[in-house]
């Protein structure tokens, strides 16, 4: 079982002060803490569980600058066998389609049974890369997978999470792309010692020419969509910020609830 997992290093924005940058099309990254995209973490764990069950190996691929090595190392420490980083100045500004193209060029020469990605990323949240990658590679895909039942006779059986608590069970030919939903497993902890142990492991780096691509295939020219503006949602009506100590706030909440007819 050869599994490829596409992963991304993203800034953690929960609880952080977000500032829109000068271009107005992105956010200020300075001062933010970065980590593996949450969904990708589940995808890496799932790949390792598959390896533990069926044997084979796991390859992790990430597109990004040198800092992405951190995320790849983390995956190696979790149990991945090889790591590849795709980097080139012209990759900057790629949308989901362009990223899928870049990834596909790296994946084509490899042998694989499954490709896993996270359902979406925490930063851009398009959810496009997985399905687009499958289309480019001309293989089947299943999105929002919350369970892999098993792999047998060249087919994989998976559960997909649909809205309203519904689940769909799919039987796909492999190779296939699965986009992995959070909660599918319990990702293992990666210790500092574990990361130190893989510090010297090779990370293969590929750029535009090694991938056989032209500048117009990537970045803004190779993308189908353009980000025009990033902004905070306008503050709506009806929200009231309560201030004070924990006790004062609780009292105010109770008063408001009572006023509005609750707690009768």
């Amino acid at each position, binding site marked *: 079982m050869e599994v490829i997992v596409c992963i991304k290093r993203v800034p953690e924005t929960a609880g952080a002060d977000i500032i829109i940058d000068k271009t107005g099309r992105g956010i200020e990254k300075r001062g933010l*803490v970065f980590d593996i995209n949450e969904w990708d973490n589940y995808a890496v764990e799932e790949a390792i569980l598959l390896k533990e069950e069926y044997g084979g190996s796991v390859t992790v691929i990430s597109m990004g600058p040198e800092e992405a090595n951190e995320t790849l190392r983390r995956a190696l420490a979790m149990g991945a066998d090889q790591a590849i980083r795709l980097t080139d100045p012209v990759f900057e500004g790629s949308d989901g389609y362009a990223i899928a193209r870049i990834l596909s060029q790296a994946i084509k020469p490899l042998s694989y049974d499954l490709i896993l990605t996270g359902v979406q990323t925490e930063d851009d949240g398009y959810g496009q890369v997985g399905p687009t990658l499958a289309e480019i590679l001309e293989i089947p895909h299943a999105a929002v997978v919350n369970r892999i039942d098993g792999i047998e006779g060249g087919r994989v059986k998976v559960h997909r999470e649909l809205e309203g608590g519904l689940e769909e069970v799919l039987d796909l030919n492999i190779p296939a792309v699965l986009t992995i939903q959070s909660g599918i497993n319990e990702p293992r902890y990666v210790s500092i010692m574990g990361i130190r142990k893989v510090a010297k492991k090779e990370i293969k780096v590929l750029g535009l020419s090694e991938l056989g691509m032209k500048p117009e295939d990537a970045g803004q020219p190779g993308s189908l969509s353009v980000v025009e503006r990033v902004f905070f949602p306008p503050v709506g009506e009806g929200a009231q910020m309560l201030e004070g100590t924990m006790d004062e706030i609780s009292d105010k909440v109770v008063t408001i609830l009572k006023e509005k007819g609750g707690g009768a």
Partner: protein
Amino acid sequence: MEAQKNELLQKFELYGCFQCGKCTGGCPVSLKSKLNIRKLMIEVLLRENLGNMIQRDELWDCTTCKTCTLRCPRGLEPMDLLIGMRALSVEEGHIPKTIIEALEGAYKYGNPWNAAKNKRSDWANELELKVFPQGGKAANLYFVCCTAAYDTRVQNVGRSLVQCFRQIGYDFATLGNDETCCGSEIRRMGEEGLFEMLMEGNIESINKYDIRSIVTTSPHCYNTIKNDYGQDGLQVSHYTQVLAEAIKDKNPFSGEMRKAITYHDPCFLGKQNGIFDEPRQILQSIPGVTFIDFDRSREKSLCCEGGGGRMWVESSDQGPRLAEIRVQDAVDMGAEILATACPFCLLTLEDAVKTTGNEEKLRVMDISEILVEVL
């Protein structure tokens, strides 16, 4: 796992254990948890499957109160064996999710509460404290503690302490947002590599600002900086020591408090570091206070179950929380205030006051908060 097993055998001298059971006899959680520290000593020695043993849920029930180690007549270190087993399971990665979150928080944000690093000093926003990284100069570093910095309840302890320090004319500065987790609980959860990383970060700050003396809010920070950091020549004090010393000759806290107060010994301050008298001296110095001691006090004090990572993991047992027993005992002996001097004890005990419905009868307060009331 064979190599790891041999390492445990050697490192913790498991052959030296004569199974007297004094460790388990003193273990506060042994009555309600499956954890049996005596048995663990011999099981690691005799049982085949260490891999299964390190997956046991009850390994996370230990509060690292250290009673077992302190009671062992052979001078063995059963608590450290247990932490060593946690460490093996940390390396495998299969540990409780809430523990993973705490460890990752300490790695990413420098605190196990997963709170933003640049908000670490917000608790002191209006206090105008001196801050070493902002050019502040002082004879002592006030090491605040993650819990005092971020927990809205415990923030009041930090603020009260600042008032106390000012009252006694104690010269201090903080590390502001540059302070990182001391690593005490991280080490006791078995993440030695991360502990070292945090320790190195703090030692770097200590050296950078040429700090010779540290005072801490928490007995956990106190214990680890004093005993785990290995910094010769660095004076480390818990705040109760500083305050007790200051009020010896002339007490600037002259107000009266007509209350019956008892004191809960934090394990990391009392049992583990022998600081029993200073907190009591402070409380007894307050005019009007009737001080009553617990039956189980000082060396025999009952653990509140807040240590050893237990703030981040539910115990596997169903028994009553020890903090609830503690609170009930305090109420039964007529105490109106249950004083303590540790952020974790404060939180677990206050929680227990609520779960036992004793809010009307008993107030849980940090010693610094009591002093502020008698300024």
